[in-house]
Structure formats: structure tokens, C-alpha cells
């Protein structure tokens, strides 16, 4: 299935790999969990059993790495709602492009 260039399909491998990180992100739909995340990110991520690599990706808001580790965008968007980070910045990070260049070249803006 994953043969379209630069296009990860969210299949069983990603779902298995990213399960804990996505589950943590899903929990941010509840306000009390958002507060706990904001109060102590490391502790919150530990309580969800994230690996060191996953913790680093989340805490540095490395959107590219979160997806590489099996994060599904619809869940990790809830992390972006905390800061908040615009969708286009997440897109640019995944494309490995400067934000303005991304808006211009990918989205035809500016």
C-alpha cells in the first residue's frame, strides 16, 4: 500500500507503532488532560508510557518526527492546539520547507 512517493498511508504498521503517542494525544480532547500536559509535559508523557524518542519528538514539537514515529496527524493536531501551531506550519515542517516557501510553492499563496 505504501508505494505512493512521500505519502505515508496510515496502515497497521503506523497504527501499532504510534499507538501510545496517539492515545496520549487523543486524551488532550479532555480539558483536565490539557491542563496536566501544560503543567508538566514530561510527567504527562511518562504517565502515557512514551519512549524517550517519542517524548523528545512531542516536547520539541517535531511534527515530522512524530509522524515518522507513527503519529497520525488527526491525533497529534490536539498537541498543536495546546500551543497553538497553525496547520500550515505543521505541513511545512513535514515537507521540510520554510513556511513562506511552503505557502507559495505547495499552496499557491503569497
Amino acid at each position, binding site marked *: *500500500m505504501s*508505494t*505512493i*512517493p*512521500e*505519502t*505515508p*498511508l*496510515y*496502515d*497497521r504498521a503506523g*497504527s501499532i507503532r504510534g*499507538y501510545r503517542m*496517539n*492515545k496520549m*494525544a*487523543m486524551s*488532550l*480532547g*479532555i*480539558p483536565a488532560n*490539557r491542563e496536566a500536559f501544560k503543567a508538566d509535559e514530561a510527567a504527562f508523557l511518562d504517565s502515557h508510557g512514551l519512549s524517550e524518542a517519542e517524548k523528545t519528538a512531542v516536547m520539541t514539537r517535531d511534527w515530522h518526527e512524530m*509522524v515518522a514515529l507513527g503519529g*497520525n*496527524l*488527526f*491525533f497529534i*493536531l*490536539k498537541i498543536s*492546539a*495546546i500551543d*497553538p501551531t497553525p*496547520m*500550515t506550519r*505543521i*505541513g*511545512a515542517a*513535514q*515537507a*521540510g520547507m520554510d513556511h513562506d516557501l*511552503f505557502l507559495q510553492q*505547495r*499552496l*499557491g*499563496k503569497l
Partner: protein
Amino acid sequence: MAKIIGGVGTSHVPSIGAALDKGLADTPDWKPFFDGYIPGKQWMADMKPDIAVVIFNDHGNSFFLDRVPTFAVGVAETYHPVDEGWGPRNVPDFKGAQDLSWHFVDQLVERHFDPLVCREIDVDHGLQVPMELFFGHPEAWPVKVLPIWVNTIQFPIPTPQRCWDMGKVLRDAIESFPGDERVVIMGTGGLSHQLQGSRAGFINRTADEAWLNGIADNYDHYRNMTREEYVEEFGSEGAELIMWLVMRAAMNDKVTLKHRHYHAPASMTGAGMVVLENA
């Protein structure tokens, strides 16, 4: 018997809801997008449906990866808008068309579909945004809703043909429902967009325009495409367009394209709508 008064295909991009919430609808970025929906909104007001069937996907809000139903049907009395992480939106609750929902579930199983039947469940932007685009922001929605969730998040997603087949059952369910309700069918999602991977930001304006022009008459082409072809042509999340096929299949073979609108980008998505009536 209940009557299908028309079919609508529309994007359900979450940024549309955010733009409405932040009062950005009249800004240069958004005005052309919202202006294009005015004829669709007017059509809806003129047609006065009683029930809206909304086919959409959940985006990690009501379903987590612990349970992924390929198809789910709501039979609830009321659906609350879900908090997607940004806090609750000021959107009224949606009343459920319970009787039609149960009738549809009966018909689905009779016809060898196996839906998850949901008695208590919240709805995310996939349902909220299409309702806002076509009904505005009333104090109470003028229609009851019959939500149909399609898994477009985790592969395997259903085939386009399976979505088509479900649309056929939907039509028969509405037309065999004892009542005189006027029903509009809203297929949602798309158009082209990709949010993940290094092809993120992919928008295919040519394919989007062809889709909007072709969904009325050239539906066989889209029904016969593979899921992989959807992803390639419309982007990984653009494959949501398969949900329009449920709507299209529920309409006559011959339809009239009443309204059509395209705007790109809405956030990172090719966005637009069609309004179809049975010919």
C-alpha cells in the same frame, strides 16, 4: 414515503469552522470561499428539508484507534459537538432522525452491511462544518440529522464501490420509510489535500475541478478508481472523497448540477461543493 430532495457534496475542513468562530469569514483569505456557498445555502433554504443525512469521517475525536468501525450509523436522540482539543465550539446540538436511522440500520443489515450502531456519540467538524456551510448559524438546526461515519483514517478504508453500494441502500431506506419527510443527502470530505508525509501540502486543482464537473455524470469513473488512485490523485486525506459516492449513488443516474463552487486553498485543502437534483 420520505423523499430525497437533493444531494450535496461538500468539503468539511476544520479551519472553516475556526474561521467562522474567529470572525474571519469576510477577510480576503476566506470571503471568496464563503461567497461561493451562498447559492447552496439559498437552495437549501428554498428546498426546506426535514432531515439531513450526513456522510463523514471522524477525525480522532469520537473514535480512537482502539475501535475503528468501517461504517457507523447514529441512532441517537441528540448529538453534541465534540471538543476537538480547542475547547467547545458555539454550535447547537443536533437532533437525531432516530426513526429513519433505525430503519436505515435495518435495511443495511438486511442487505448484508454490518454497521456499528451508535446510541450515544458526539460529532466533530466532519458533520458540523457542512451543516454550518448550508444552514448557517441558527439557534436550533432546522433539520434532524442521520449521521453516517466512514473510516477514512486507518487503512484498510472501504472501497469506493462499497461506498457506492451503501448509497443504494440509503436510497431504498429513505424511499421505503413511512413518512413524508423531505431528505437531503450530504456527502462530505475533500477535496484534494495531504496533511502527512513530505508530500504534505499537495493540492491537485485539476483533479478537483474534474471531480466537481464529473461527479454528476462521470460517476462510473470515480466508482471504479482504486483507493490508491484516490490517494495518488487527491492526496492521502483527499481520499475522503469516496464519501461523496454514498450521496451520488443515492441519487438518480441522471441528475442536474444546480450549483458548483471551488476554492483553493482553504487552509491546506482544495475546497468546494456541488448541489445535485434528480433529473
